[in-house]
């Protein structure tokens, strides 16, 4: 039997335990809410966790592309990036899966050839961790970009509205001249 088949058989239990582990990374009171409120709009974080871990496991079991998993991981990391986590904690949820597989598949991993399969799968999960870290950084940078943009927009608009700036308009005659000049060059 192949590792992916075993994982497929144990999918439900792995998903449940993985969800619980991720939920437990949030402060007291939050885990039960994340777990029990099933409405996707009343509990968007819980819903995102569920969606993400299912997608990751599906990709591993069905040997789907990493890209598909990354789409979901990106969405979840987008959430973790604005929550109260350190960078390492924000992306550590994939390590939880590795540990969980070691615990849940302890006996199976002793079987012939199985550990090699596990190592391959582990490498794949590691690649997902790296991709998640890229996402994390992307969103943290986005936060600072948004800060700067808000500030710049306000300052610029104020100057503009107070008639303290001059801006070229698209239909400025100067542009027409430039265009004809460049045409001549051609």
């Amino acid at each position, binding site marked *: 039997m192949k590792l992916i088949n075993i994982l497929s058989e144990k999918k439900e239990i792995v998903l449940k335990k993985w969800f619980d582990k991720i939920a437990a990374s949030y402060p007291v009171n939050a885990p039960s809410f994340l777990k029990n409120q099933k409405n996707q*709009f*009343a509990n968007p974080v819980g819903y995102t966790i569920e969606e993400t871990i299912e997608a990751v496991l599906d990709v591993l079991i069905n040997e789907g592309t990493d890209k598909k998993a990354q789409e979901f991981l990106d969405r979840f990391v987008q959430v973790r990036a*604005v929550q109260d986590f350190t960078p390492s904690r924000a992306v550590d949820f994939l390590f939880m899966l590795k540990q969980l597989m070691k615990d849940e598949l302890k006996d199976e991993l002793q079987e012939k050839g199985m550990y090699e399969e596990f190592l391959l799968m582990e490498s794949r999960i590691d690649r997902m961790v790296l991709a998640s870290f890229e996402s994390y950084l992307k969103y943290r940078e986005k936060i600072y970009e948004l800060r700067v943009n808000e500030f710049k927009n306000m300052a610029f608009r104020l100057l503009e509205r107070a008639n303290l700036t001059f801006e070229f308009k698209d239909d400025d005659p100067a542009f027409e001249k430039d265009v004809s000049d460049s045409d001549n060059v051609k």
Partner: protein
Amino acid sequence: MPNESKSDELKQDELVKIDYKPPKKDWMDTPVHFRHGTYIYPAKAKNLTYLGLPNPREWSPADEDWKLPDNWKDIILNGMKERLDKYRSFKVFMDICVRCGACADKCHFFIGGGDPKNMPVLRAELIRSVYKGNFTAAGKILGRLNGARGLTKDVIKEWFYYFYQCTECRRCSVFCPYGIDTAEITMMGRELLTLLGCNVNWVIEPVANCYRTGNHLGIQPHALKDMFEMLLDDIQDRTGVKIEPTFNRKGAEILFVTPSADYFADPGIYTCMGYLMLFHELGLDYTWSTYASEGGNFGLFTSHEMIKRLNAKIYAEAKRLGVKWIIGGECGHMWRVMHQYMDTMNGPADFLEEPVSPITGTRFENAKSTKMVHITEFTADLIKNNKLKLDPGRNDKLRITFHDSCNPARAMGILEEPRYIIKNVCNNFFEMPENTIREQTFCCAGGAGLGTDEMMEIRMRGGMPRANAVKHVHDKHGVNRLTCMCAIDRATLSTLMEYWVPDVKVTGIHELVANALVMKGEKERVVDIRGEALKEKKGEDNVR
């Protein structure tokens, strides 16, 4: 995490054992940690001084020493006593909570972040525990068993952290079987903090500016008029219609008051252009004011006394100009003040008349006492009476959803008027899921003075439930425009969308009206009010 100094003593097996769980401690034993992105910069001393507020000083929440006055404890406890005697609601809210938990999972900050102290019940408990410990016999005797605690400097820090992580949106109150208004508890918490000079600059600077100049940014009359010139030039450029509004005109029938962000900030300016075009088209006898040039009232986020001080200018200006009644623009918290406080704080406005629309003759009985009508009530009435020529096809490139801004929805119940207008000026309207709109609307997470850039992480976190619902209609119906009727929303939702649903832009309702409004003497409209191409050409068949 292993202690760093002992890490070399750990074996490999121990090193890989990572405890993913946060430490389990009682909430009273969990002090706050001020990390950048999770708190707002403190109020500058000059602004507190200008307003005559106590204990102005240079300090930072991230500092260990907050430079509190020596008698800080007495100040807080006396302040609490005074307010418990003065505001019955405060006393009742302190006493009646049975911790049923109905509110616990309704706060957008808790939903988005999971911090238990953002559960409304626990947020209230931050102050209730001090009330019990100092003002109730059971609390004094039983202490923690009764949920009571003493007052320490860490409690003050905790209040500052969490009362500035509440947007006073009142979603939790909708679900409370006892009707506890957590926003009012936050307001009390902030009032008490203000007694120690622990306010935030994003609130107190606009308050100082508003008190001195009339609006949040301190825009003076000549600059304000210049700003309007820009808007009027843009309107003429895009519609061919020249508009000449009046300012501070005595004897006008109506005074129009709107948040200042409508005339200086994107995308509010397009909503403002909508007001200008609508009133011009109607030939309305109205005036703007450079004195009552701010509908917003950040006093609401400071103290009751400050609400009153800032709000007073509206009636004072109405009286000075001799208008008959007032129309107010698309603002959120401004309407909580107008609807729930203005009448008793600065009324009765018996020098004004009960508002009657000069165009339709409709009597706005709901505004009989305040004499102030919401712009969407006014416009919906115009549409209902067929007084506007509209071409909704001009908004066809937009696929629209509507965010009920917290205060108009929950504090005054304006739910239908905005939808009625939108459906008449647009052809593509899609509601977000039921538990995210109307009374249950999710906050933008930037209200009540939180909409500043240094709070970006918290704003994105708390705004997640709102954005999640927008994303849903974006994915399902291709929604590309989020409409709202609040100046803070227009600013903060724009940024929120950039993070969570970048394809969606934000708009005010009267921007959509401006696009659809067929004006006398207009040129063929090829661009919308933003100056962007109208993708679909208008047809006479579309005209209603």
